[in-house]
């Protein structure tokens, strides 16, 4: 019902787009069950979406899968000012990470450039009624009017979502925080800035351990910065961090307190044929993600996504070209600073598909089993709600098909930098500037 008569081969469909008009979205993250989706924006706000539970009995009925609606909105970070350096501190939310759920409340970490905050998101749907000393509006009663005692009773009330800051982890970073990652031990997390990685305990805000420090004694010698860091999903002693030179370093915290010396370093030797002045810039890793299995690493540099096997350091096991047609345009992209754009990359729930963003509102998905990639578009004008997404193509030569986009007509202001994949199902959230798109894969073979 409600299905357009599209080709059954293309099985991606467009559920709904949620427009957050206010600001540019800077991070997107599902929680561990996928029921909650958090977005952070440049204005320091966090918006949490909740998936509606399927109320109908026949959950396979088309169009009845849970949709995401706004659950809560709060201001996470405010603009700040560093008086010592006469610097503004942006309130933009760089990363959000959910903690594994332990009780009825949900916890998430959000960070801007300097400060990490732990937020508690809880629901309240009952309130006590029948106080002895206060009346219904909360005013103190006149004692003389109290003739009998009663026990206050909890009565159901409209659902209220409360968000409160529980911890503020401040003053841990001199440079800009680019990553946070919750440890599998459930007690600690790491935060990484350009030159250092710190480890925090979730309950302790006035102290953190510095576990990586690559700041040189003489800043003139600085040639490499940390670009991303993540804990291993199962081993609480392992973490990885990526650098602007395209290297990945796996560190084992059991080896030493300060993990400046890596356990493993993953580096691909440079291709001499492709060498240019921009080689280093485009090799800079903008995002690194462990696979759910913990066996592989996914990295994104400017032109490619790469899959690395933790057991093999000498090079990636898979390389996918995201937009190789930009290689001849690197100088212009350097001029307009696009070459410094930091794209994220994500795994699907089974580690069989990887996804990353590109320009012109395009994003790319690669099927690891077949090695094939597909280009999709997150752009409202070309999709109707509940329509099936059609694949797009950038024309790079050969036979030109209708709908192909030329390289010179790509819009470099429409970049898909941030995205998330549902931990269990094929639902993806794509941030396109100030719009959030949620796409769902509909396997509609049996249901038609």
């Amino acid at each position, binding site marked *: 019902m409600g299905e357009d008569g599209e080709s059954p081969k293309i099985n991606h469909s467009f559920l709904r787009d949620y427009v957050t008009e206010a600001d540019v979205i800077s991070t997107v993250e599902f929680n561990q069950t996928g029921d909650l989706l958090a977005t952070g924006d440049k204005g320091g706000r966090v918006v949490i979406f909740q998936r509606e539970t399927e109320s109908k009995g026949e959950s396979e009925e088309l169009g009845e899968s849970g949709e995401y609606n706004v659950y809560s909105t709060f201001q996470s970070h405010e603009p700040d000012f560093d008086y010592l350096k*006469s*610097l*503004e501190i942006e309130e933009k939310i760089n990363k959000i990470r959910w903690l594994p759920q332990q009780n009825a409340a949900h916890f998430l970490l959000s960070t801007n450039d300097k400060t990490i905050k732990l937020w508690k998101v809880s629901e309240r749907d009952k309130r006590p009624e029948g106080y002895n000393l206060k009346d219904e509006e909360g005013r103190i009663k006149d004692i003389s009017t109290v003739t009998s005692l009663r026990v206050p009773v909890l009565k159901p009330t409209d659902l209220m979502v409360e968000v409160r800051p529980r911890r503020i982890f401040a003053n841990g970073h001199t440079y800009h925080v680019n990553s946070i990652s919750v440890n599998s031990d459930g007690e600690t997390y790491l935060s990484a800035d350009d030159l250092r990685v710190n480890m925090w305990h979730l309950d302790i805000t006035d102290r953190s351990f510095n576990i990586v420090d690559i700041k040189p004694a*003489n800043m003139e*010698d600085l040639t490499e910065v940390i670009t991303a860091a993540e804990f291993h999903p199962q081993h609480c002693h392992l973490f990885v961090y990526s650098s602007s030179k395209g290297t990945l370093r796996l560190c084992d915290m059991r080896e030493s307190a300060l993990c400046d010396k890596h356990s493993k370093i993953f580096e691909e030797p440079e291709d001499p044929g492709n*060498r240019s*002045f*921009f080689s280093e*810039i485009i090799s*800079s890793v903008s995002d690194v993600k462990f696979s759910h299995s913990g066996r592989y690493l996914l990295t994104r540099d400017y032109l490619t996504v790469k899959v690395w096997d933790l057991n093999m350091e000498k090079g990636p096991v898979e390389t996918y070209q995201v937009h190789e047609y930009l290689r001849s345009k690197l100088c212009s992209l350097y001029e307009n600073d696009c070459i410094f754009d930091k794209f994220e990359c994500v795994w699907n729930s089974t580690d069989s598909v990887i996804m990353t963003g590109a320009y012109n509102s395009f994003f790319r998905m690669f099927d690891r089993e077949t090695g094939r990639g597909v280009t999709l578009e997150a752009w409202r004008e070309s999709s109707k709600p509940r329509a099936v997404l059609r694949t797009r193509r950038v024309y790079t030569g050969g036979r030109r098909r209708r709908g192909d986009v030329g390289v010179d007509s790509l819009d470099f202001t429409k970049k898909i930098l941030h995205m998330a994949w549902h931990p269990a199902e094929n639902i993806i959230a794509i941030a396109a500037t100030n719009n959030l798109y949620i796409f769902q894969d509909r396997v509609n073979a049996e249901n038609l």
Partner: protein
Amino acid sequence: MFSKGTKRKFSDGDEEISDESLVGARVASSYSLQRQSLLDMSLIKLQLCHMLVEPNLCRSVLIANTVRQIQEEMTHDGSWHMVAEAFCSAGQSPSERLVATEVLCRSREQDAEPKLFSVISYEGCREEEVVADETLCSVSVSDTVSNVCLAGRIGQCWEKSELSGVERDEEALEDSRLGSGEDEEIDTKDRASTESPKTIGQVFGTFEIKNGSPGPDSALEELFSDVDTSYYDLDTMLTGMQSAPKMGPYDILDSLAPSHSSPSIVSTPNCRSDLNELDHIMEIIVGS
């Protein structure tokens, strides 16, 4: 587009074979021009970094590495001129000129080439100005700044004198005085950014009081060993010091004690006065 070794196809049939060398020179000069414009662009980007309130360190590092890479290549090509050794004003003494140098990582040629130091830019450089070599030498003498950096520049001067006719780009052809082995006239008509871009060193904290360099004065180091120098490092420099918000690049340098010459590897007396200056600024801010 700027891949190394890219050559255009030469399809003009009128050219004689004897003009091949000229063709080669043209192609090479076109590559040099492109490379130079990339260098200019990078230096401007670095300068803009200074003006931003919150510069992105990753971007700065990547741009700086690109500049270094170009410099290395230009140095090995022999086309690296002393960039913009002009004075802000004629009356300024050499010691007032702010000189920032930067150490290139490593010389590719294994032989006894002197350690290469590059002078990327000077404050207030002007076009069309030619500086006699002895000025450089006098700077090195009068400065108490580490001899290492300036000696390197001198070394490059002398090295320049041995390169004869290597340069192929247009300016080199015009300036045939290079390679004379005499006092070299440094051609500052270089196309490098004329707007006094910041040097790599300045970007990353040439003003760093941190004594990271082989400190000439260990006593001084002991004295300040427990001082938290994190205030004085990269971010402070990138953001234009504490004394005034959002200063332009000139202001940054002006706000330091004018007696300072080279901020890069700060010598003892300079270091002390720098610290006094910063203490003074800190007092004003803290209001103590």
